[in-house]
């Protein structure tokens, strides 16, 4: 080919190549296969619902997106959300401990203690209310409280946290990617809530047995324990198991007497509603992953599942406001053991990995 023709040819090749590159450079990225099937746009988060659970309600003001979930994960594990950079959400709601903690009462900044046990965040997205006393109507509202609680994360105000995060370039970028209005109090809460909505834990051996119809998924002892749970133990009425999913909570408040025999007992739901009938009543917790989330009850006063069963078997702790559904159960030793075996079958696989990898700090 002549030199001129070579140059002509090269120009055409470059033009074509450049066009192709241009096209691929500016065109919207195709949706990768793992994200296909999600509704509407490619930025929606494809939430998978594990066996034994239902979809969480996603508030209209906070649709789930990849960017928010990722940002929320960063925030959840970030100790800088506390005033002295020592406590993050994950400190008390630790993936290595069922997203709860092995302390009876969690310890916040500067060794300070509150008065309640940290509940698991797993499946909290499925509850109508948050906290032992139900005072927060959503995950978003719950996320704000520990940040400014003087014995937990101790920030002087939520606005102070906004200012602190604005000084961190990575957060300026990731907030702007996730929210049109960047770093605000509500957006911090929304991001954390979005991440928490992905913390769904089902698919336990119980789920595979009960919903998956796998006969051998749980032991004969656990099967007997399930029967005690639903009949003689009277557990299922508050710790619900339904025909297509199980949250193991009726999301109501009951007084089983825990703490009522001590001076200055925690009055629980009464502090929120001021109704006498709510004295000493606390929200029925879920029992999913209960084997990982001890110690138990709102004050962490029960160290083991066996001790919890003993508490219920004897009829709770007598007090003037004891729930009328609580009474001595007269369980045999075998029935108590079986009940514990059943509760152990409620542990989901790979809990520490739910919600994705823990970001390096």
């Amino acid at each position, binding site marked *: 080919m002549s030199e001129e023709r070579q140059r002509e040819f090269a120009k055409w090749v470059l033009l074509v190549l450049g066009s192709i590159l241009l096209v691929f450079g500016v065109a919207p990225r195709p949706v990768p296969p793992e994200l296909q099937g999600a509704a509407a746009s490619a930025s929606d988060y494809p939430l998978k619902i594990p066996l034994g659970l239902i979809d969480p309600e996603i508030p209209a003001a906070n649709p789930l997106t990849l960017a928010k979930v990722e940002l929320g994960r960063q925030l959840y594990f970030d100790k800088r959300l506390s005033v002295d950079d020592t406590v993050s959400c994950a400190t008390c709601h630790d993936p290595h401990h069922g997203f709860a903690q092995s302390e009876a009462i969690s310890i916040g900044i500067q060794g300070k203690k509150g008065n309640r046990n940290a509940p698991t965040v797993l499946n909290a997205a499925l509850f109508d209310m948050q906290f032992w006393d139900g005072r927060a109507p959503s995950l978003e509202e719950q996320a704000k409280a520990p940040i400014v609680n003087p014995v937990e994360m101790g920030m002087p105000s939520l606005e102070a946290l906004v200012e602190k995060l604005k000084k961190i370039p990575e957060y300026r970028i990731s907030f702007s990617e996730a929210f049109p209005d960047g770093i605000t109090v509500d957006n911090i809460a929304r991001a954390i809530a979005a991440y928490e909505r992905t913390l769904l834990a089902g698919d336990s051996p119980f789920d595979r047995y009960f919903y998956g119809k796998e006969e051998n998924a749980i032991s004969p002892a656990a099967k007997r324990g399930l029967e005690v749970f*639903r*009949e*003689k133990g*009277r557990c*299922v*009425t508050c710790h*619900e*198991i*339904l*025909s297509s999913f199980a949250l193991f909570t009726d999301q109501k408040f009951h007084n089983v007497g825990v703490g009522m025999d001590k001076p200055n007992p925690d009055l629980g739901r009464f502090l929120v509603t001021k109704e006498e009938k709510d004295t000493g009543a606390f929200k029925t917790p879920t029992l999913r992953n209960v084997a990982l989330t001890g110690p138990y009850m709102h004050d962490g006063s029960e160290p083991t599942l066996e001790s919890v069963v003993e508490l219920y078997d004897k009829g709770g702790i007598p007090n003037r406001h004891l729930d009328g559904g609580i009474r001595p159960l007269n369980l045999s030793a075998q029935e108590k053991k079986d009940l514990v075996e059943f509760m152990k079958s409620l542990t989901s696989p790979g809990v520490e990995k739910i919600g994705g990898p823990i970001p390096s700090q």
Partner: protein
Amino acid sequence: MGKRLAALVLVAVVIGLVALAYVASGNSSPQTDRSAALTAGEGGDQAGSDDRAFKLCDGETEVVISVPSAEKTGKMSREVAEQVAARLMQEWTIQKRSQGDRGSLLLAHKGEPHSRREMRTWDAELDKAVKEGYRLFHDSSLGTNGISCDMCHPDADDTHPYTYPKFQTQLKQVALLRDMINWCIENPLEGKRLADDDPRMKALEMYILWANKGEVAVPGKH
């Protein structure tokens, strides 16, 4: 003369039938009346009886009935007239059924209405079963703490058997009446549950359902 009389009788009888039909909602006595009438006529070939044909006002349905000779002509006795009405109705219904129409009055057992003896016997059997259920309903030995069902449910009130199946909040599942009976035996009565096919469970269900006679079935209602 016979034909006109027969026609008049038929008209009177049909009017009577209509009146009976109004009364008959849920009430077994009209049926009993019919069956009583029929019993009187059964065993057709008695001495002193004659066959007599009757045709319904639809012009199609016709029956032949054996009536006492004394009644072969003239105004019929009430008993025989009822017999005629019953047989005509039966015949009409069978024809309708064979045409695929169930009709408004259902006769069981291959088109043969219930005899009075049968009705009496079956009612007595039901009565006995319901009474056994009533006895158990008032028997605290179903439980261990002296409580019997009637203490919270006098006359089986507040049992709502006509709302089952429904989601029963105490059991956390969709339940039938017997599931709730067992729950009550285990919980307020602190007793041992009965097997689903235990005669005692069946008797309890029988009494509870019987005591709530007339209620509209509204499964799922809370």
